[in-house]
């Protein structure tokens, strides 16, 4: 009974990940990230993705403030924020977020304000979708660990 719990949860995790890969939300870099986790750093994926969330949300808030300002003109700053988002998103394998950030960055390089506003909306949307998916994944992982823990008492 408990064994089934672990297997079913593992199947759920696999299904979720497969779906995210097929949607292009994640790419192979996510697998590279998972491989960096081991006994010496057992919660690395969880930790680093949470740092990613913190930093990304700060950047997104800053971007929104910049663009909502009527007198806005600091496209360079937008570019810098986006470079950071592109880099970190690609490092965790968040392909779609990375791609829409690149598109947004192009609009900022052209000093295209409406393009930037639209770009920001899309990035926010993709980012929140990713965040929800990651939370779901972490929850399943937690449940699986618990189920596995009960199965193998110390």
């Amino acid at each position, binding site marked *: 009974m408990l064994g089934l719990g672990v297997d079913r949860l*593992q199947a759920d*995790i*696999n299904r979720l*990940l*497969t779906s995210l*890969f*097929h949607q292009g939300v994640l*790419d*192979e*870099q996510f*697998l*590279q990230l*998972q*491989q*960096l*986790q*081991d006994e*010496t*750093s057992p919660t*690395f*994926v969880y*930790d*680093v993705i949470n*740092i*990613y969330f913190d*930093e990304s949300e700060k950047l997104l808030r800053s971007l929104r403030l910049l663009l909502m300002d009527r007198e806005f003109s600091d496209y360079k700053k937008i570019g*810098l924020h986006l*470079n*950071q988002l*592109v*880099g*970190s998103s*690609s*490092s965790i*394998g968040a392909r779609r977020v990375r791609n829409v950030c690149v598109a947004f960055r192009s609009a900022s390089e052209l000093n295209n304000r409406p393009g930037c506003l639209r770009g920001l909306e899309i990035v926010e949307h993709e980012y929140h979708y990713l965040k929800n998916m990651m939370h779901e994944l972490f929850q399943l*992982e937690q449940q699986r660990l618990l189920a596995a823990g009960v199965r193998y008492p110390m």
Partner: protein
Amino acid sequence: MVMAAEPQFHVLAVDDSLFDRKFIERLLQKASCQVTTVDSGYKALEFLGLREGFEINDPDAVSTSPVIHQEVEVNLIITDYCMPGMTGYDLLKKVKESSACKNIPVVIMSSENVPARISRCLEEGAEEFFLKPVRLADLNKLKPLMMKTKLKNQKLEEIEAPSKDESGTVAAVVEPEVKDLTEIGIKILPLQSEVEPKQVHLQVVQQEEQTMSNNKRKSVEEGLSTDRSRPRFEGITTAV
């Protein structure tokens, strides 16, 4: 678990973003390196025992005590390009201008593929320019390079301080008499050819140049097509 024959490389990683520092630190640990992370070029220079405007072996400089930093040999500096204040490029220049540190290989990372920027960094003496995301394979390629500088440092120690005292490792290298490392480099070569066959040395250099030119080509090529030409992920077999 005992770390057997594999030498310990010490890498100084510089990035203003916490995420990037965590990420590169884990990558480097996974590549069996010791890591020190700092969040700015200024802190990197401090760690290296350099400070804006003067070096520790400058006779006019205030005598500070960089002993702690000198005992920790740095085999590689890996830095983000885009940082506030001092960019990775600025840091690269400072390191290459320093006679104490110019032989430390410097690698630059960026999330932007700008060929002009890449060339400029390579011309200034950067060994590699990595586009993010940096991968374990990228770091493993740096090992022969780090090995080479580590061996070079060991040779320098043997020449400068044949009778080592307890702490005397890298400290010996930066004695005030040692004004110019290239001067010592020239002195070393004849010795090296006695100790090891020249062919071996040449082989190592050639391999490096091969790898380096491959990597340089890689980063510039990628500017031409957005697709990274790595196998696209089709489906997964494992989860965590």
